[in-house]
């Protein structure tokens, strides 16, 4: 079933067992984003020390895709440098814009390549990107502060 390419096991697994959920009170940037078409909300707390993401935690309510996506995002980016994070975010954004034509770069995205299936569902791309866009903002804020 076509639907299975959207709701991959890994995605539903992250949805049911979200990683890094619960906001760490120590952070260098806090950002809240909302999906205006459905109301999904996510708050991210990002902590950057000497250019390294020492913690990335979140809270929010939303559909399986938005929740699983932010869960994987946190997993992937924790302990990475901001430059490494940037590469990963770019790669993920490209994958989501691919309309099902890309399989994703597993070297960079690891488990998150399962979102390749989501890119076939234009209505859900925004869900998948919600946490990632929030992270982008948070990273800019953190850099602004460290300057």
């Amino acid at each position: 079933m076509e639907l299975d390419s959207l709701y991959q096991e890994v995605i539903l697994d992250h949805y049911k067992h979200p990683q890094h959920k619960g906001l760490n009170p120590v952070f260098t940037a806090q950002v809240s984003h909302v999906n205006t078409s459905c109301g999904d909300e996510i708050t991210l707390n990002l902590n950057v020390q000497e250019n390294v993401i020492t913690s990335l935690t979140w809270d929010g309510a939303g559909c399986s895709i938005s929740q699983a996506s932010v869960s994987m995002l946190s997993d992937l980016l924790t302990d990475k440098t901001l430059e490494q994070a940037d590469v990963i975010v770019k790669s993920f954004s490209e994958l989501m814009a691919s309309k099902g034509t890309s399989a994703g770069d597993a070297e960079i995205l690891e488990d998150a390549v399962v979102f390749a299936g989501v890119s076939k569902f234009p209505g859900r791309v925004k869900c998948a990107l919600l946490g990632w866009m929030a992270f982008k903002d948070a990273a800019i804020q953190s850099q602004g502060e460290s300057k």
Partner: protein
Amino acid sequence: MSFSVAEVRKDFPIFERTIRDGKRLVYLDSGATAQKPWAVINAESDFYSKHNAAVHRGAHQLAEEATDAYEGARAIVAAFIGAHENEVIFTKSATESINLVAYAMGNAEAGNRFALTSADSIVVTEMEHHANLIPWQQLAKRTGAQLSWFKVTQDSRLDLSNIEQIITPKTKVVAVTHQSNVLGTINPLEAIVKRAHEVGAVVVLDACQSVPHMSVDVAALGVDFLAFSGHKAIGPTGVGVLWGKAQLLDELPPFLTGGSMIETVTMTSATWAPVPQKFEAGVPNMAQAVGLGAAFQYLSALGMDQIRAHEISLTDYALKKMLTIPGIRIVGPQTNESRGATISFTVKDIHPHDIGQYVDSQGIALRTGHHCAWPLAKCMNVPATTRASFYLYNDEHDVDALVEAITGAQEYFGRF
């Protein structure tokens, strides 16, 4: 029911197509926009291919024919809602209709009955669609008027217990929806209209979810302005209606300005044409108005009372069947009293968006989210809902398909 859904569906070409690899289309999203019968599609095409010209302007045969078609549509719309012809204004949508009233009030100068100051208040309700909320927020902001609102009770009704404190002698306008696009609740208007008129306020009714589904008579309702969209009433996109009492439309300043709404113009000033022209600046959405006329002729031929009866019996069936699904919560009246054929719900442990996606894979179209009524979602304590909305082309098979799909979604997402 006194018309055959199977026959009705034949008039709507979209049901000839299939969805998601050959599945039957089950369209349960008429609350967002309705499907169109050939009668409407052809009315637009005919206008373009045979009578197209700018109305009210040219001194030639096509212009006469186009004017007849356009004004003929106005007469049909007026008759449909029990209004006078010159009280019917064509807009692009209900959103524009409501903005028209709000902006025009903002244009009123001291002395005009619509002029607002910080001594005045505007009343809305907690169950309004954003289209009947934000224009009033903005008007309040521009004029300094105070915004007050009726709350919604936990059983999905307007809380009118404090009506005298909400609608006060300061109140100039009360904007309320006839039927909630989320809950399905049909609001009791009598008390609101009575109290509003008692204090000299006008009532603006958002009739987006009522005019397409039941017989609406503006005189009987007693409201002062009424707004709806053509596209939710099997009419074309790009056309809406504002109805207002003739005398009030006379006193209301214009909104959009430009051609065809003027009497005289100099470089520095202008005076206005009589209503309805005063509110229809520019070359109007002629083909769409004509299409809306065809839509109302189609609906009238079936009979609005028959359509309402059909929807009541379908809602009965749907409520009963849906309530048997474990973990379901109907967000809206649980019974079929004073409610329309719009049923919002949540399912335990499955996000509304995921429900929507699963049922879509089964060929069923419905809507998920806050349905442009975010404050209402907050007050019902749901982040979002899934909404099924029924219309004249839906039947019990469609309900069955929905119930089966919800159960399927529970299995699908219960896999792990």
